[in-house]
């Protein structure tokens, strides 16, 4: 009986994982890019997230949506990764409020093309300097989630999420506004 139950749980884990990856593989990879700059460690993190997701589905109780569960597990795994790296690299992370005055100390990649690739590189670099709670909100916003869904995943009110998103847009305007472009 116990063996049959275990088989059922494993089959359900596999089904959930397969479904999750079909819909969220791209989002998970983008998330890993936002949490880890080093390409080798980024692949490790991405695989850690995939594995954590699969393991987590053994406990998925359906009280929240699958999407909420997936984003929570992925962000928690990535945040644990950053906490471990912080101890190693002694990197100081900032809040959204501090991001307005942040200056990237790294040299710009001379081979990066102007336009979208450079903008994306800069955006990713800015996100990587953010401390966990703000980074989570920003990434979920960039994935196109509504304020209510972001609040549900993060444990914040929609109003608090809206404030952070507004702050993010102001920061991005400042950091990217060379030609008077507005942030949508």
């Amino acid at each position, binding site marked *: 009986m116990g063996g049959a139950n275990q088989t059922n749980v494993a089959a359900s884990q596999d089904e959930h994982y397969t479904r999750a990856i079909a819909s969220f593989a791209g989002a998970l990879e983008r998330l890993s890019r936002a949490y880890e700059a080093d390409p080798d460690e980024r692949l490790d993190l991405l695989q850690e997230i995939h594995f954590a997701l699969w393991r987590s589905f053994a406990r998925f109780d359906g009280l929240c949506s699958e999407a909420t569960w997936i984003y929570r597990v992925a962000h928690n795994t990535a945040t644990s990764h950053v906490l471990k790296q912080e101890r190693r690299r002694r990197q100081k992370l900032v809040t959204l409020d501090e991001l307005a005055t942040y200056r990237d100390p790294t040299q710009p990649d001379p081979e990066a093309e102007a336009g979208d690739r450079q*903008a994306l590189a800069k955006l990713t670099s800015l996100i990587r300097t953010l401390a966990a709670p703000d980074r989570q909100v920003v990434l979920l916003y960039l994935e196109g989630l509504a304020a209510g869904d972001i609040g549900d995943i993060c444990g914040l009110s929609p109003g608090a999420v809206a404030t952070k998103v507004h702050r993010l847009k102001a920061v991005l305007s400042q950091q990217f506004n060379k030609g008077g472009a507005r942030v949508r």
Partner: protein
Amino acid sequence: MSGEPSDFDPQSLWQSQAMEHDPMTLAQIHTKAQALQSRVRRRNVREYIACVVVVAGFTPALLQRASWMMQAGALLIMAATIFVAWQLHRRGAAQPVPEGGDALIAAYREELVRQRDALRSVGAWYLAPFVPGMALLMLGRWFQSHAAHRPVGVDHIIIILSTAIVALVFLVIWLLNQRGADRLQKRIEEL
């Protein structure tokens, strides 16, 4: 976003990134799950071997019939080793199954609190268990078991220096952990 003063759309830019890696297949996931179980088993074996090594290392002191203090000290250190190994095993249980049941901010706070408490309590469960045994060993050496080939005065100086070094190492470990806990506490308060 090509130098023209057009609207900058960070969401579209973000979501337009191409994937670099294929997701893990189920076969890869199952292999990793088995590898995790093996790693846990190997870690447990290493901990047991470390315990056995420490117990074996202090057995000569345990057999020192001339000094009941050294015998008692050795016994206490063996007991402390087993206790600390059990604590390490309990606290560092194989990667707990990830959860998505809590909102992110609650999970983040919980993780910071867990790490803070582990650092704060290091004195109690990692260092303190060894203190009675070490103290008895040193006292046993001082009062009951001098090195035969050495003048007593020199022996005492060596005991004092050894005790001071051990005390300093314990103090540094404790202070570093308290500093780490303070940093985590600050982050918890900022949430």
